[in-house]
């Protein structure tokens, strides 16, 4: 079953900046209901990113717990002025997942395996950067990619569904992919 209905499980749609700010305040106040809402919105994203790096469901579950308890315990670590909560969580997920991967290999102890691990981290890095780029790209671009790629709409249908001109849909698809292509360079590195 696919959780979330968009790229990298990021299908929750537009989040206005106000939502990020209010959520941060609610978490800071220690509102248990806010924690539930945060989980519902972002657990598929965090889990999906972690699973991509770790390729192990149990390990990905571990990252899920770590990320949400970190945010709950340190609500001030997120500054709404510096970006979307979504991007912040994506960055945390990547960091915790890579840390777990390294740790698992160090525990295994073999030198050869450590080399393999670094290679695997490099290999998943482009993919993880791409995930990060998709989660933090402007919503109009992400929505266009979601319709064209995941829902197999052609660009005219995409335009109709987004309520924009066909020309604008073509522009968004091209720009979205151009952004995504930077994952192959260092430019899109997670914070």
């Amino acid at each position, binding site marked *: 079953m696919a*959780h979330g209905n968009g790229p990298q499980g990021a299908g929750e749609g537009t989040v206005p900046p106000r939502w990020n700010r209010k959520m941060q305040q609610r978490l800071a106040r220690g*509102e*248990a209901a806010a924690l*539930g809402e945060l989980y519902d919105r972002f657990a598929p994203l965090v889990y*999906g990113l972690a699973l991509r790096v770790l390729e192990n469901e149990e390990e990905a579950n571990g990252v899920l717990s770590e990320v949400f308890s970190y945010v*709950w315990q340190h609500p001030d670590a997120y500054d709404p002025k510096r970006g979307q909560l979504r991007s912040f969580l994506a960055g945390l997920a990547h960091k915790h997942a890579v840390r777990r991967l390294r740790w698992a290999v160090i525990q295994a102890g073999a030198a050869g395996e450590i080399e393999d691990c670094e290679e695997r981290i490099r290999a998943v890095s482009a993919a993880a950067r791409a995930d990060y780029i998709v989660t933090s790209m402007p919503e109009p671009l992400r929505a266009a990619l979601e319709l*064209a790629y995941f829902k197999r709409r*052609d660009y005219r249908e995409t335009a109709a569904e987004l309520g924009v001109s066909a020309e604008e849909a073509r522009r968004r698809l091209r720009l979205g992919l151009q952004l995504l292509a930077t994952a192959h360079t260092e430019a899109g590195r997670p914070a």
Partner: protein
Amino acid sequence: MIMGPYDHRRLKSLLGAWALAACAPEETAAVEAHLTDCAPCADEALRLRDAVRLLHPQDNLDLDPALRSRVLELCLTRRMPGIPMPGWSVPYDAETARLDALLHDMGEAEWGAPVQLAWYDDDRPAARETSVAGVIGHLLAVDGLLALALGLPDPLAADAPAAEGPRTVSSPAERTEALWQEAGSSYAEQQSLARQLRRRHAGTMHRHWRDQTYALIRTAGFAGGGVADLPVRYGGGVTLPLRDAFLDRAFACWIHAWDVAEAVDYPYVPPTPEHMHLMIDLAARLLPETLAHRRRSGRASPPRTLVAAGTPGRTLHLEVEGKGGGNWYIPLDSPAAVAGPERAVAHVALEGLEFCRLAAGHVSPEDAAAGRDGDREAVDDFLYAAVSLSRM
């Protein structure tokens, strides 16, 4: 050349759509012809095609629904919440989250699936065909009774002119019909809509329902224990304290999520044993009053003995087996009588899931897989009272 209306600028603008295979066939052909003799475009086309490979659907992402409560509990032990969730709202929080996840998982086509709502009316099975969106609208409309009790906006009154004043609270069925009519979500009406409009309608219903569930949970948390006993009026003289109304709605949410899951052929597991126990307990607590009501309207046998309030009376032993189960002792002659094992004249034993199906009106008293012992009349009265707890 088949360039026709395609010049370099236009072809360049098509590269993103081309890489995503989202062009018309003649455009695809024009772009591909262009790439053989335009190096900058060919370069970009290659880069964008590579970028598409970085997109990946999470189609096998199987996030275990049981993780939610585990992760949240872990968080809450690491940092005590300043504003906790009252215990009685937790099953509602869990069940609405599970249904929400199911709705996110469902494909677009599945939103149009017909869903059968089933309940018992006047001791006879009743049913109504609707769409998934109709089910969500039903939950939205009835949950609105809790919103009213908490002073939140009534989802039904959303479009009503202010001059009309507050809507008189009607029964869950009337509210549902009214909302379906307002929103245009009858099954026939849904089927007549273009796919795109149906999808939009479903999305709107889903969002309104989810927003209201969040508002209810949040408000209950802010009000703390103070609102637990606030009366929620279900119409027809039926009133539940808010804490029980939250449980009742958690139960309804699960049952209807199950209806939806069956309609679209998705797996759906029961609530946690702890939450199911609370739901069964609510039904067991409502049964004595229900029995008394049925006796008054001649639908249950008259009391054998007149029992003074607070004294022991004839008892039915309800034994619910499996996780979430337990033993309940239901007074048969008067809700005010004291029930206990020593006065048991009848014994009904069934699985938790079967009891819930019965209380939801999804199985008939005759067909319910239940062990029946003792006074046959008492057993039948009990089973019919249980099924009569169901409503649309």
